[in-house]
């Protein structure tokens, strides 16, 4: 009781704060890491989340990490305090950090010839394993796919990445973040998994790795059709739309059902918010 009390009081205070005073636009909203340098460090968990802070620390230590950037938890707080809108200037800061990432990777996001793909991952102050969303392979579109195939030399790899993107994105961004609550087993991800299982069964495959490039290509088309049928919207074919969709979904997942119930159990305050790592 002694401890619970202290915790409860801080929670109450924090709630009062977010409700009464408008959350101000944070000063620096995006922290870059990569190329053995980083804007942040391990001590900045509150601002960058655990993952972001440690990625920054590792980059500074010279440990190889893929370059990227972290959008702060303050942006998450602002987002919820301002009817799910972003502070002005965020787009510009993201663009700047994305450009730095492109430079180190020697690739360009959305580029037809030499495309860069990104992952969009959540990262709260204290770890909440599996509670919040992640979207991988963001940036694959009809424009960038040929470039990706040329660059990697593997059609199979690119379509495998694409089918994963469609599965994750349709589930996390188009369904969960849009507030759609399908009946049991009727979620888009489940339905797509079923298509994939049927394909594997019809061909007698045991593992995902048995699927050929042609199988995967066919699968992606079937996926996109299903997404359109179930959700009523086409799967986005623009890299930037996918990126912001992913960011939006990570912020939304902070208030997803399972994240909220996990926070209850672990006594994590609702006000902490999550960061977004790209």
């Amino acid at each position: 009781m002694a401890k619970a009390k202290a915790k409860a009081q801080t929670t109450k205070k924090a709630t009062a704060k977010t409700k009464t005073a408008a959350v101000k636009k944070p000063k620096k909203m995006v922290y870059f890491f990569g190329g053995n340098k980083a804007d942040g460090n391990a001590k900045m968990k509150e601002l960058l989340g655990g993952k972001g802070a440690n990625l920054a620390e590792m980059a500074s230590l010279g440990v190889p990490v893929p370059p990227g950037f972290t959008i702060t938890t303050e942006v998450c707080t602002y987002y919820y305090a301002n009817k799910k809108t972003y502070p002005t200037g965020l787009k510009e800061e993201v663009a700047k950090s994305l450009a730095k990432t492109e430079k180190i990777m020697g690739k360009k996001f959305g580029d037809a010839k030499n495309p860069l793909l990104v992952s969009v991952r959540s990262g709260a102050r204290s770890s909440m394993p599996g509670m919040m969303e992640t979207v991988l392979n963001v940036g694959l579109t009809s424009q960038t796919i040929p470039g990706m195939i040329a660059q990697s030399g593997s059609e199979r790899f690119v379509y495998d990445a694409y089918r994963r993107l469609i599965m994750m994105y349709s589930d996390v961004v188009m369904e969960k973040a849009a507030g759609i609550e399908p009946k049991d087993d009727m979620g888009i991800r489940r339905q797509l998994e079923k298509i994939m299982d049927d394909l594997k069964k019809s061909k007698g495959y045991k593992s995902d790795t048995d699927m050929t490039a042609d199988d995967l290509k066919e699968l992606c088309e079937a996926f996109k059709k299903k997404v359109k049928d179930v959700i009523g919207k086409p799967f986005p074919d623009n890299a930037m739309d996918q990126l912001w969709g992913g960011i939006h979904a990570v912020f939304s997942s902070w208030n997803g059902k399972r994240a909220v119930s996990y926070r209850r159990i672990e006594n994590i305050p609702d006000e902490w918010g999550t960061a977004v790592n790209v």
Partner: protein
Amino acid sequence: MVFGNMGDDCATGVAFSRNPGNGDNKFYGEYLVNAQGEDVVAGTRTPAPINAASQSEHNKDLVTLENGMPKLYKQLVAIKNRLEKHYRDMQDIEFTIENNRLFMLQCRVGKRNGPAAIQMAVDMVKEKLITPEIAVTRVTPAQLDELLHPIIDPKTEKDHAVLCKGLPAGPGGACGQIVFTAADAVNWVKNGKKVILVREETNPEDVEGMRAAEAILTARGGMTSHAALVARGWGKCCIVGCSAIHVALTSKEIRIGDTVLKEGDWLTLNGTKGNVYVGQLPMMDAGEENRVLMDFLAICDKCRTMGIRTNADTPEDAAKAKSFGAEGIGLFRTEHMFYGKGSDEPLFYLRKMIMSKTTDERKKALAELAPYVKKAIKGTLEAMDGMPVVIRLLDPPLHEFVPQDEGKRKELAKALDLNMNDLVKRFESLHEVNPMMGHRGVRLGVTFPEITEMQVRAIYESAAELTKNGKKPYPEIMIPVTCDVNELKDQYAIVKRVYKEVLAKYNLKKLKTLTGTMIEIPRATLLADQFAEVAEFFSFGTNDLTQMTFGFSRDDTGGFLGKYVEKGVLEGDPFQSIDVNGVGELIHVGIERGRHINPDLEIGICGEHGGDPASVEFCFKVGMDYVSCSPFRVPIARLAAAQAAVQYGCTCKGKCNTKAKGKKK
């Protein structure tokens, strides 16, 4: 981003710089060739071990990273070492290999179960990676509790056939009835059942059910799967990747070879070994004879300034508590000898004493009772040789000892030469409307001084005889339920007189002893300065103090307290964790006023709160000299006291915590 799925020179994996399941200082992890990160955690493919130390029944035929990509493995080990040294803690890392190039995608302090947390804390102190002060903060009381938690009785387990084996993801034993969904787990537990949640694999939607279940069993997934990770964080018994199990969700049954089990059937899990058994196997307490635990508690003791005593009523309990590291007895209840095994004779004489009409009769009965009292006290003082033993004088209301049994009543009537009518009349006269606030504690001593005298004599004679035998007994006589200093003075006159008489009888100059009072009535806390003029120690009886401060009868909170906590009227059960704002304030006032008069006043606590970590922290902050708790809670109290000292105090062994840190909060 970088890709682990571009071909066979690509891979992705999850690893821990030390084994999170048992704490071994061995790099531990799983990986998949040509895959993206989600595949490792999702359990859709069986991940391969990164090295020999990570092999299990499950994956021993798969190629390790060490053998498959030796150069990259070496690089990964170097980075792991660097990160662990930098963060000075076990790291949980995610990595991806893209076309033979290694990238780290994440590192964080790794979750671990209790045994692993303790092993790592002890090892890292030995390796000089961390200080003892940091080591004690690396283990939570709940994690320590895991080691003290039940395991399957090994004798019974030996004779049972293992149904199937999985990976030991969460240690300890558990048994419960099979349920297949998280929602069922929650509902069954609400109805008072114990369940084991059996899943193909768990996902984040299952957390509430996982929390409710006694244990979790999955057919798929590795040591880094969702179920393993979450269970480890909670210290819950868990077995994952038990591939022999086929879960049929629609028919709510599982098949293991020819065995079919249905919802509601009993299973017992050994999460330390990964064994699954059919039926209910008996559980027992673990924790004794655990070398690493002893080492860890020794580290705690180095950092701790507050003493830890135990509540024990028999020489056997005392010996047990000593083995757990208790440094004395904070509460020895004399009335214990009137309950349970071997209580027939002393209880008969006690009843005779209660029924006595005249002082002479009572004195005669007391003389018959005295040898029993002395025997129990002497045995306990001897078991705790050299350590303080706080002996509380008779506390409960006498009517508690009135026999209900007709035969016992007749026997008593005969012994007292009374007819049954008179006997029943005597009984009726003892009846009280509210006995907990009735004729008990010091009130018995004031009204029947001969009862106090008999007990005090038994204590001093025990001490004198032990001293004569070269022992070092240290009794502290505690007078219970006082509300006014005059009660104390009244009893002290007896204590002092008997002390002198015993010294003379045994031809001794002095005995090491203290006399003090139990503070459990709010009035006493407010008048503590007066009490401190007489008492040499205070012991806060926080069960009664909470009862009387709240006005809640401790035995009658069932009807409302749950609702109170649920509705947020109260933040918690004040009988479990000290109510800092109310009861705590009274204690704080009592200590300040008492120490103002007598700075050397010894102060402790002997309620159930002594074993609650948050309450132990409170006791440290208000400057108590010791906490006393039940024997099995002693290790928890040692850890909690060490953590409080590291967080709020200095390591000086004096009473600086009482003076510099006397302010609460």
